[in-house]
């Protein structure tokens, strides 16, 4: 089974890195770009076959390790079961 967990900063939390990327994009001539938001994604493979359990585990993993709930949200997407 394969899944993707995406982690992103919560709305309203300042992202200096994304800001730097936006400024660099503008310097490169991509003036029309208004906003860039950066995140992380994890591609996770499991050798189990219970998709519901897998999703539940990833929800737990997302909360405990993959994201910092103080400033980040995460999303679990099952790709292949």
């Amino acid at each position, binding site marked *: 089974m394969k899944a993707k967990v995406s982690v992103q900063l919560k709305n309203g939390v300042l992202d*200096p890195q994304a800001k730097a990327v936006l400024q660099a994009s503008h310097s490169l001539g991509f003036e029309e770009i208004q906003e860039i938001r950066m995140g992380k994604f994890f591609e996770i493979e499991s050798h189990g076959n219970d998709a519901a359990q897998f999703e539940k585990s990833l929800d737990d993993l997302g909360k405990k390790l993959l994201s910092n709930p103080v400033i980040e949200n995460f999303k679990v997407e099952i790709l292949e079961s």
Partner: protein
Amino acid sequence: MKVGVVVFPGSNCDHDVYHVLGHEVGFQPIFLWHKDHDLQNVEAIVLPGGFSYGDYLRCGAIARFSPIMNEVIQFAKKGKPVLGICNGFQILTESGLLPGVLRANESNQFICETLPIRVESNQTPFTRKVALKSVLKIPIAHHDGNYYLADDELKSLEDSGQVIFRYVNENGEVSAESNPNGSSRNIAGICNQQRNVVGLMPHPERLSEKLLGSAEGKIIFESLL
């Protein structure tokens, strides 16, 4: 006094802390390997600076799950003194022993500088001997020292006197210019509600002996006794 210095893979300030505790302050320091479960009857614990687990994923995000953290958390819950310096502070926030999070510096740069830090409270085991509002010049060396906490919780933190250290200018005043990394309210260090766990980004162990220029930082450790 027996003090434990936890060593995680990637910690690199453990020896400086050990040296200051033993040679400069006269305590009995021991190293505590992150995989052990035996705190060996220490009376205080220091989580030193460095790059535990290479800062992978997020600073301190993996170290917080090191086996010994079970015991460190229990130790802290009993009200015993725990100090987190730099990466140690990051580990304390990731583990929930301290509120908030240390984010990347606003400038996206690693900052290495000796700065004036004002001590906002002497009601902690690590600032007990410091005169209130005194300014200590302590080195910082970090890329991720930008302290963040949601506004309502930040207000609670301030109201309960949990802000312990703040970045100030030479005159001891809080200002935007004196803030090296964008930390909310110029916060350089905080404590928990119980006031036994303290975290700070600056490195007092780097300025604890006159031979290296100043012993201003030593009082943080001396306060324990």
